[in-house]
């Protein structure tokens, strides 16, 4: 820590950098935020790359390439607190949907080559599958309000709190008609962790699970049988489930053939 500021780094692995974009987009708060931080590296804001020790490392993106792996291990060594931000870092991202498929076939179908162009590891892993993660903030992208809460706690050295209730709770609080009950939609709200204030259902669109499952709790089998009863086909449901959470244990099990 230098003065009252904490030293932080924002590091990108494989992802669209949307989480960091969201942070940079909160223009009305940025000046106040940077007053509290000594940023040594910020992948999306500056091309400066240093390997400095930091108090807190914020990481977005999945562990997809050999380079991701090496950089991540170095970051872990260089930081006190490691925070995974966004669905890619927390669950492997939409790219992890391909979990279980052959890497060579994928390379062939996209690049028409059998060569491993960018030292692809063969799968897209969550950060916690590779190194110890202190805190995870889900979302695709993250909600800045939640990021600020987390940041404020981390700056003060307070153990942050995370939501462990599903999107349905936020739907009910906003009195949004249930898309499953009223319309038989394949909504993933019941098993998806809240924090988005049920943004999609509010606009009449079923939840696609971008915030990932309620950890250790999501009743995937229950969600599946519920949607089967509503007339959805098993494969349709599985395709929805795998989009953002293919590496969640119970969904991964459904993907095994």
């Amino acid at each position, binding site marked *: 820590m230098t003065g009252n500021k904490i030293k932080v780094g924002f590091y990108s692995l494989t992802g669209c950098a949307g989480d960091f974009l969201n942070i940079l987009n909160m223009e009305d708060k940025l000046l106040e935020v940077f007053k509290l931080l000594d940023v040594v590296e910020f992948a999306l804001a500056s091309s400066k790359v240093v390997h400095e020790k930091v108090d807190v490392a914020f990481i977005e993106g999945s562990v997809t390439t050999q380079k991701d792996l090496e950089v991540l291990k170095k970051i872990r060594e260089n930081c006190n607190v490691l925070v995974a931000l966004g669905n890619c870092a927390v669950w492997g991202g939409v790219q992890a949907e391909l979990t279980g498929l052959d890497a060579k076939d994928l390379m062939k179908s996209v690049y028409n080559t059998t060569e491993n162009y960018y030292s692809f590891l063969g799968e897209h892993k969550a950060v916690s599958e590779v190194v110890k993660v202190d805190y995870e903030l889900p979302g695709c992208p993250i909600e800045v309000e939640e990021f600020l809460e987390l940041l404020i706690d981390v700056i003060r050295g307070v153990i942050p709190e995370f939501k462990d209730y599903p999107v349905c709770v936020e739907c009910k609080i906003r009195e949004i008609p249930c898309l499953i*009950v009223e319309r038989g939609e394949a909504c993933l709200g019941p098993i998806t962790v809240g924090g988005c204030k049920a943004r999609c259902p509010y606009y009449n669109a079923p939840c696609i699970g971008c915030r990932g499952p309620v950890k250790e709790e999501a*009743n995937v089998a229950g969600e599946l049988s519920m949607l089967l009863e509503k007339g959805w086909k098993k494969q349709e449901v599985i395709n929805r489930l795998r989009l953002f959470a293919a590496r969640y244990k119970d969904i991964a099990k459904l993907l095994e053939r």
Partner: protein
Amino acid sequence: MLKENFKDFFETLKKLGEVHAPVRRGRLFSFTKVDSPGEVALNYNRTMLPPKKYFVKPFEEVLKIKVGKGYELIVEEPKSLVLLGLHACDINALRVLDSVYLDEPQDDYYQVRRAAAIVIGVSCEPDEYCFCKSMGTDYAWTGFDLFLHELGTSYLVRVGSSRGESIIESMSNIIGEPTKEDFIKLRDLELKRSRMFKKILNTSLLPDIVDSLHESEVWVVFSDKCVSCGSCNLVCPTCRCYDVTEKVELNLQEGVRVRRWDSCFIRSHALVAGGLNFRPTRLDRFRHRYNCKSSIDPRTNLPFCVGCGRCSAFCPAGIDHVNVLNAIWGLA
């Protein structure tokens, strides 16, 4: 009171406070602020959120924080509220909430809002989810100021409090004396309503049956279907659990303490610091809810479940409260 006088009745209520009543929103109903009598849907089946939302807010700031220094109460000016169109089940549910929140030491936030609320009930007909008759909560004998019984072309106005008495005294021009025919109509309609209930739950000895059949396979079967979404808790008119968190501003000096409706289906509900969870599995939580709802409030002698049918009507997994308990009774 003739139905054509409802307009004037409504206008008089508006003078007593902000009128909130069931309003149609798509296929659902919601208690909402209403400005004109035409918006009021007195013929509704049920709202998704019960009237508890006016007294324990889904999400509210309760204390101001000065970081490292202390707290300040957030005091709200009491605002007169007229809650128009509550069904008997919801009135009884408010009595249950009262018995919890007004029990010493009382919840000041609740007390202030409750004291400022005029409650006007309305008669109803049961649909396929209603089982208030089984719970004995289909009749509100107290807990309201006025109660409107629909008798075809008119309402019979039943008075439930001295405040209600003075309200109708001020409306003698639109509310006349009921006739003998009115009372006979009321009797006949009530008998008809009583025969309309399709959902029946055997409630004698229910607490004992639910408690003693703790190991029943029924709990396992239904809790496997349950997706732990918490909807049943949030729409329940007597569920009252809340969680509390603190948020601090970027200036690191100020913050607020917030409370939010909670659900006993959420992992952290019975989790203590250090990681011990007193209800670690979905099965534990499922049974907990049914035990809690099947018990009887010792202060009002009312059941903790008032049979409004919301948990069944709004469960995405289609779990029906009465079906679960009937399965426990061995009637499935």
